[in-house]
């Protein structure tokens, strides 16, 4: 390396150092440790009690013995991992399309309208409001005698239980809060994408006699495809990481009806202090998220080469 090159590299490193040191110690090292820890048994306490157990933690969380006897249904109905996977996937499958529909509808209504900024601020506001405050407010509103039940009884639906205390309704309470909170965020992304729909295409469709609805189906929606894909991927990932809403509103209950992947990790790690098993569940989460990210990378290449 020449002297000038050496000096340049040193200067570059001095720019990187403050951030990189913090990043390496508090992010990179733990990421590597997380993978390793999933092959050990450790229930807290002194580090000398760390014991290598191979794939035992994975065998335990999948409950391999019982599942191989009783089949997959047993896994999804009785095993903690199966239940939390099932709940998380159900939550994701409902929340993502609902949020997309709401976000897109809001964006279409707001597109090219006077006073849009004021409405935009209102729809976006739940996203910045802190979780504890909004979740406790929603749980109160969804209580037995709360305003929501008063309203649905007034329109003739005889439901008079607390949503978060009912094992069938609890997950819907969480979905409701999630959609309400996030729709404004994705609306902003859609609003930006709508600016990119070429005017000429819309005008051409009008000249061809297409009404507003046909224009939307045949021009706007196809033009928004990359955005919808991107938004879906982001949302799926964040749905798999759901914790706050559940922890505050239902704490995984009643029973295990709203137990999610991260709620399960938290319980094993910080309540039951089973570090090895908690890390094994973390790896499941990691693999799921990485697979989705890889799909996104691949498809983005496809979109850009199209």
């Amino acid at each position: 390396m020449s002297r000038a090159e050496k000096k340049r590299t040193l200067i570059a490193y001095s720019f990187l150092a403050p951030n990189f040191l913090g990043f390496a110690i508090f992010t990179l090292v733990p990421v590597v440790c997380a993978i390793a820890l999933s092959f050990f048994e450790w229930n807290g306490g002194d580090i000398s009690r760390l014991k290598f157990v191979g794939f035992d933690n994975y065998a335990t969380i999948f409950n391999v013995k019982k599942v191989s006897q009783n089949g997959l249904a047993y896994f999804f109905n009785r095993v903690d991992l199966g239940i939390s996977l099932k709940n998380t996937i159900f939550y994701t499958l409902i929340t993502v399309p609902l949020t997309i529909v709401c976000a897109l509808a809001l964006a279409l209504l707001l597109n090219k309208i006077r006073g849009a900024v004021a409405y935009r601020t209102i729809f976006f506001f739940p996203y910045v409001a802190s979780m504890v405050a909004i979740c406790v407010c929603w749980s109160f509103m969804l209580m037995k005698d709360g305003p929501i039940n008063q309203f649905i009884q007034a329109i003739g639906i005889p439901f008079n239980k607390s949503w978060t205390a009912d094992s069938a309704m609890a997950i819907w309470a969480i979905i409701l809060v999630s959609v309400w909170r996030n729709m404004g965020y994705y609306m902003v992304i859609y609003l930006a994408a709508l600016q990119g729909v070429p005017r000429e295409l819309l005008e051409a469709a009008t000249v061809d006699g297409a009404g507003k609805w046909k224009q939307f189906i045949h021009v706007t929606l196809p033009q928004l495809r990359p955005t919808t894909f991107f938004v879906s991927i982001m949302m799926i990932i964040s749905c798999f990481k759901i914790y706050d809403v559940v922890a505050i509103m239902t704490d995984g209950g009643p029973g295990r009806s709203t137990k999610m992947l991260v709620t399960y990790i938290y319980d094993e790690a910080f309540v039951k202090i089973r570090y090895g098993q908690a890390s094994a569940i973390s790896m499941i989460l990691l693999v799921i998220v990485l697979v989705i990210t890889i799909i996104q990378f691949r498809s983005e290449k496809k979109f850009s080469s199209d």
Partner: protein
Amino acid sequence: MEQTLHQKEIRRDNPVARKILHIVIYIVLTALALFTLIPFVWMLSSSLKLDREVFAYPMKWIPETIRWENYALIWQKVPLLTYFKNTAFIAIVVTFLQTLTSSFAAYAFAKLEFRGRDTLFLCYIATIAVPWQAYMLPQFIMMRSMGLYDTLWAMVVLQAFSAFGVFLMRQFYRSIPTELCEAARLDGLSEYGIWARIMLPLSKAAIATLVIFTFVSTWNDYMGPMIYLTRDANKTIQVGLRRFIQENSSDYHLIMAASLCSLLPVSIVFLCLQKYFIEGIATSGLKG
């Protein structure tokens, strides 16, 4: 054929029809906006009632007697002020450190040539994809062994060096022409000088975006403080509020008053800087 086309155009340009359409859109939007705001209005209304009035039937939006004293009461029930101070400390220090170190590192990634640059940057990007929940446990064990458990500094180092900040700033710096830096180098400015006098002033918008993203997400963070902060003197407003709810679970009116207070600081920051927040999302589409 020509005639029908003409008629269609007339129909579409009909000012009355257009006006009606606009009015309908505004009505729908206003209804949706009200629906979005209902929880906040209900929060305010309940916070000014007596506890037994909160779930009275039929529900009243405006309480019979408005009880502002609820807002005085909450400060005596829990050390809310301590919670606020702790949260403000964490949010401000994290935001400052994050913005400073990110823009510093981003300059190297965007404008300097050195060996291993692309590999290192790939490392940063890859960890953005790794969910924090997957490595929070080893991180916790490590921090505890460093003696950071139950300290505010744990929350600071946890969030101050995120890869997201570096990524956001690098993307922005890459849009600034490299010729500008080269010209400054010829004029004898050092790399630090270029960063301070050229890059920083040019990246005000990106910095504003990063500041508000970091501030809001740190202020609202729940899981981090939940794991790390146990002593009351160290709690943030989020976990403090949670404690208040658990200990006074039937004081609905006071819980709502405290919740509303916890929303205020971040709402003010948002309303002041919302332009940068929303533009930042629209251009980067990334989550903090």
